[in-house]
């Protein structure tokens, strides 16, 4: 039997997402080291990251509330595989810490990096605090990572 022929295809394409009004305000806040959530007037849940609509109450959200830069580590993992950063095209090698952080003043958690990668120093329930980039640009990674508070 002949050798099977396969064809390699590499697609280079880019997308520009409209972030929406709620995310625009959130990102603008990040540029000023300010974190805000949107509270649902129906169930009282404070959504972070903010979104325009409560999926449980079916209400439009417009009530902004301030959120602290520190909170509780609700879940964590140390990822040991590299990943491709779609925004820069660069590969980030493991290990790196990833957490679900419930900031004081919010009722949902935020996905973000953890500075700590040693599993023995991480635990559910630890207090963590945001560390910021020097060059703020209004994006989720203006927060560099979350650090465990001593």
């Amino acid at each position, binding site marked *: 039997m002949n050798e*099977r022929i396969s064809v390699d295809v590499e697609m280079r394409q880019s997308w520009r997402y409209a972030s929406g009004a709620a995310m625009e305000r959130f990102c603008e806040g990040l540029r000023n080291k300010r974190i805000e959530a949107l509270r649902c007037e129906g169930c009282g849940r404070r959504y972070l990251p903010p979104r325009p609509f409560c999926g449980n109450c079916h209400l439009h959200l417009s009530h902004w509330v301030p959120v602290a830069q520190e909170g509780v580590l609700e*879940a964590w*993992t*140390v*990822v040991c595989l590299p990943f491709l950063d779609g925004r820069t095209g660069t590969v980030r090698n493991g290990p790196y810490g*990833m957490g*679900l952080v419930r900031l004081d003043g919010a009722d949902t958690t935020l996905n973000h990096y953890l500075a700590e990668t040693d*599993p023995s120093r991480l635990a559910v329930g630890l207090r963590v605090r945001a560390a910021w980039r020097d060059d703020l640009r209004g994006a989720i990674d203006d927060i560099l990572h979350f650090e465990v508070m001593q």
Partner: protein
Amino acid sequence: MRHQVIIAGLGDTESALEDSRSIPEMVLAAVQTALADAGIDYGAIDSVVTASVDLFDGITASNIAVTEVVGAVMKPETRISADGLAAIAHGACQIWSGAYETVLVVAHAKTSMARYQELTQWAMDPIHVQPLGVDFLTCAGLQARLLAHGDAGADRRWAQIAADRRGRASRPLAPASSVEEILASKPVALPLRQGMCAPMGDGACAIVLRGAATGAQGPVLRGIGYDLEPHALGDRDLTHWHGLERALQRACKTAELQRAYAHFDFAEPSCLFAHEEELFTAAVKLREDTEISADGGLLAACVPVVAGMSRLATATRQLRGAEDGGRRALVHGTWGPVAQGQVVAILEGTPL
């Protein structure tokens, strides 16, 4: 009165880490087997439902690759971009409604074509999650950590589940391993290790659904239910599969079964990680004598998209082989990060 849906024919390719055939070749093999199993030809098909995911296939409208081989030319065709068991739900609805008598349902995926885990990043929010490189594996690691919190024996139990499932498979895509080997396997997203994750591969599955008026024989699809959790991990209770509980409740309702008294002889869960089997059993509350993952399930060999349909195929074979012909199976499928989407089907050998 609702029309009865029979699982009249099934065909699947053997899961492989890399199937050198093209997608149409793979799908054709599954379809031809299913049609032969049902004793029909392409002319008998009234409608086709396909399941595929564009990201995995590298083309948009990925069903265009299989239009001819599934017999969809000049026929009504619907494409589902989710687990194949959700496609079965749509096919069953077409028969239940009386619109069609014979529906062919087909699912396919080839993870060998690209870097599967990387692709799953693109199923996450593009503004505040994708830029952080979060993929389905990272999400599963976060969930596993929550479950293991305060539970020192969790990782050993998960290793035991994975070792057991892989050990009962005739051709697992990952080698059979002991509990100790799994616990020592490569860490991927702690506390998850490679051995606790479903090995991914290539495959296709085709199932012929027919209304009882056709005279078709086979297990009866009594009920289907599904559910969708919020997409954001931070909005969800990751310690329970509440979506599965709701899906099962709906499936029991369509099957006219009392949830509290519904017993299943076989259960075919779709578990991509060993800890998910504990979430499954906690949500569906099976009796101890229910046989789970007769062929090793997805922890032995997993083809995304095909996954839930492959569970339906296994359950169908179990029911066909059951001596009394009157046994009941629960079949499960998922899609999305940490099983955001949940679908279940209830099958019976003959009406109990």
